[in-house]
């Protein structure tokens, strides 16, 4: 088959067009160098089908863009999402426990440990001067302050748990961030399916969907299954039914069995069996022990309880019948201080109130330190995975600059080739057969 004279022009044209597309893709990459979740793209060039020339073989016909490829490693996405869940859980837990720790005010002059010390010292001073109005007044004052400090600590832990519950409701409630993200995911799923049904690769939609999944992974454990037609099914927190299936959103979200992430941490913090609740339980144990141990000594001497603890409302109080006027240092005469001495010796007793309280402080301290370490480890890991992800999918400006030059030169050269063909044709058309003219 003879080959067209104008063949060279077309070959050059294909080169021009392909280089231009590649330049366009480079521009797109540069424009999105700082876009969150963007994966760099690449114009995949391929030589077009050759022409067969009898006797000499195949003649190349130029180049064409086969596809615009999105460069991304979906395996790293899975790893990233696992870590994002840990980061979400760790950060939320560490933040809330931090609050709890702050409310303890230990070690310091205003914590319960200092109040206990003043309380025991007051009993000692009272033992030394059982008839002194000042010693009585200061004992009742210290006891009242101690009781209100214990109640205030319990209140503030309840407040922290309440804040966690409010955050959880805001996140997972109607119109919350979870619903927005899930809704957007369902929308993008539909758009991707439509685009793929006409054979196109919606790269930027994929990026947006992956970014939403990253965010979702911070909230709870996410499992993603593709349906082979571009759509995905997203299950959240080990629920039995998917949250998003293709373009369908299930709202309210199906019950999660192992939420993890921010939602899991908030659930634990606000739960009546969660971490904060168990701290409150230890405070109750401490207050109960304080009440029992003090009353056990005070009751026989004064025929009245000193402290009262109501487990239902978690309130510690000084028995209203015990006042500066009625408080007693011993059962006997005015100078009998045997009960006051015995009470002052509860200070620092093994298994006594100081001991129980120090145990609580150590426990909270350990758990806060653990939570903080966990959050920071998850952060380091997720950063390193994000680095690897960026290494594959991120835009390198140096690389794009190099590509820019490459494709620009390619374009220039294709134009030059076209000019050369043009000159050949000029010779052929305008100068051939004019001998003697």
């Amino acid at each position: 088959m003879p080959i067209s004279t104008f063949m060279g022009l077309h070959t050059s044209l294909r080169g021009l067009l392909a280089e231009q597309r590649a330049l366009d893709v480079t521009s797109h990459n540069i424009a999105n160098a700082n876009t969150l979740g963007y994966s760099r793209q690449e114009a995949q060039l391929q030589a077009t089908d050759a022409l067969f020339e009898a006797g000499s073989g195949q003649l190349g016909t130029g180049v064409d863009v086969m596809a615009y490829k999105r460069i991304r490693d979906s395996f790293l996405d899975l790893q990233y999402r696992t870590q994002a869940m840990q980061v979400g859980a760790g950060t939320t837990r560490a933040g809330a426990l931090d609050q709890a720790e702050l409310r303890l005010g230990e070690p310091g002059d205003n914590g319960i440990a200092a109040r206990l010390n003043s309380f025991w010292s007051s009993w000692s001073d009272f033992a030394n001067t059982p008839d002194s109005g000042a010693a009585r007044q200061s004992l009742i004052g210290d006891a009242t302050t101690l009781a209100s400090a214990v109640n205030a600590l319990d209140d503030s832990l309840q407040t922290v748990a309440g804040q966690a519950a409010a955050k959880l409701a805001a996140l997972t409630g109607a119109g919350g961030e979870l619903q927005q993200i899930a809704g957007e995911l369902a929308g993008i799923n539909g758009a991707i399916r439509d685009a793929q049904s006409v054979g196109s690769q919606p790269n930027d939609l994929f990026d947006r969907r992956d970014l939403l999944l990253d965010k979702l992974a911070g909230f709870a454990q996410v499992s993603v299954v593709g349906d082979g037609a571009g759509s995905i099914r997203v299950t959240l927190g080990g629920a039995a039914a998917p949250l998003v299936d293709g373009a369908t959103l299930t709202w309210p979200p199906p019950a999660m069995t192992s939420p993890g992430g921010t939602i899991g941490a908030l659930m634990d913090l606000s739960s009546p069996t969660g971490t904060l609740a168990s701290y409150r339980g230890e405070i109750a144990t401490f207050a109960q022990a304080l009440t029992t141990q003090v009353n056990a000594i005070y009751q026989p001497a004064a025929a009245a309880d000193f402290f009262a603890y109501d487990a239902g409302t978690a309130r510690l109080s000084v028995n209203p019948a015990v006042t500066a006027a009625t408080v007693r240092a011993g059962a006997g005469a005015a100078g009998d201080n045997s009960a006051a001495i015995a009470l002052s010796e509860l200070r620092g007793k093994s298994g006594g109130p100081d001991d129980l309280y120090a145990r609580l402080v150590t426990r909270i301290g350990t758990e806060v330190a653990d939570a903080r370490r966990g959050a920071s480890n998850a952060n380091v890991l997720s950063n390193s995975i994000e680095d690897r992800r960026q290494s594959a999918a991120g835009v390198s400006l140096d690389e794009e600059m190099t590509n820019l030059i490459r494709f620009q030169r390619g374009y220039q050269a294709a134009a030059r080739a076209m000019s050369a063909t043009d000159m050949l044709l000029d010779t052929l058309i305008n100068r051939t057969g004019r001998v003697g003219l």
Partner: protein
Amino acid sequence: MTSPRITTSMISRNVLADLNDVSARMSETQRKMATGKELTRPSDDPFAVGRALALRTELEGVGQYRRNAAEAEGWTAASDTALGAVTDIAQRARELLLRGANGTASSSQRAAIAEEIDQLVDAAKQDANATHAGRSLFAGTATDVKPYNMASDAYAGDGGDIARSIGPGVSVVVNVRGSDTLGNGADGKLLNVLRDIAAHLRGGTPADQAALTSTDIVAIDRSIDDLLGMRAQIGATANRLSAADDRLAELEEGVRGLLSKTEDADMAATLIDYSTQQAVYQSALRAGAGIVQASLLDFLR
């Protein structure tokens, strides 16, 4: 092997993360320097904070024991002074007895001596009514009651002990009861002895005379011995208290040292940390500024 692709956002993200890291460490060090404490929150070192709480409790307890001991020393000193006065009175009564027992004394002289001994009884009761900070020293635990009134020789206090706690589980009884020294009515103790002497001096019978030279002398000597014995006991208590105070002072010093070691920052080390971190921060800033700015763009024409 190819080196990994380093992209623009990786560089800026890492530079930022590293700077954050160094600043966080610097702020931690700054906090240590400002508070002088190694531990400001339980999570800094949970175990050490638990230990610091226990040490602080112990320190407060030791301080309180020292205050208790000081208070008890005040009590024993006052008791000793009062008993000293009573002893002087007993000695004076013994001298008077010897003078009155002398056969040459006339009955009017004896009556005068008996009068003086009656006065001594009142003086002894007054001394036994001594108080420390408003509390009766010799009335047992009935510190709000005067142990003796002038109308009778009966003891109005009780038999209770007054204790001061000077260590974990260590209490010291600091009081001496009036009933053990001066006595309670006709029980052969000091007041009873003095009353007998006065009666014998006034009586003038040969039997009275005989009693003055025999049983009364023995009785007053025994009373003086009792008083001296009581004072020795109080002296021993005072010694015990002062020894306890010395021991407690040493203990306080030791616990304070331990507490400081547990919760106070090592200033020299902290300052060195701070300068190191400052240097690291500055070089991180410099390197970051250089890396983030440089790009192929700067060199393309």
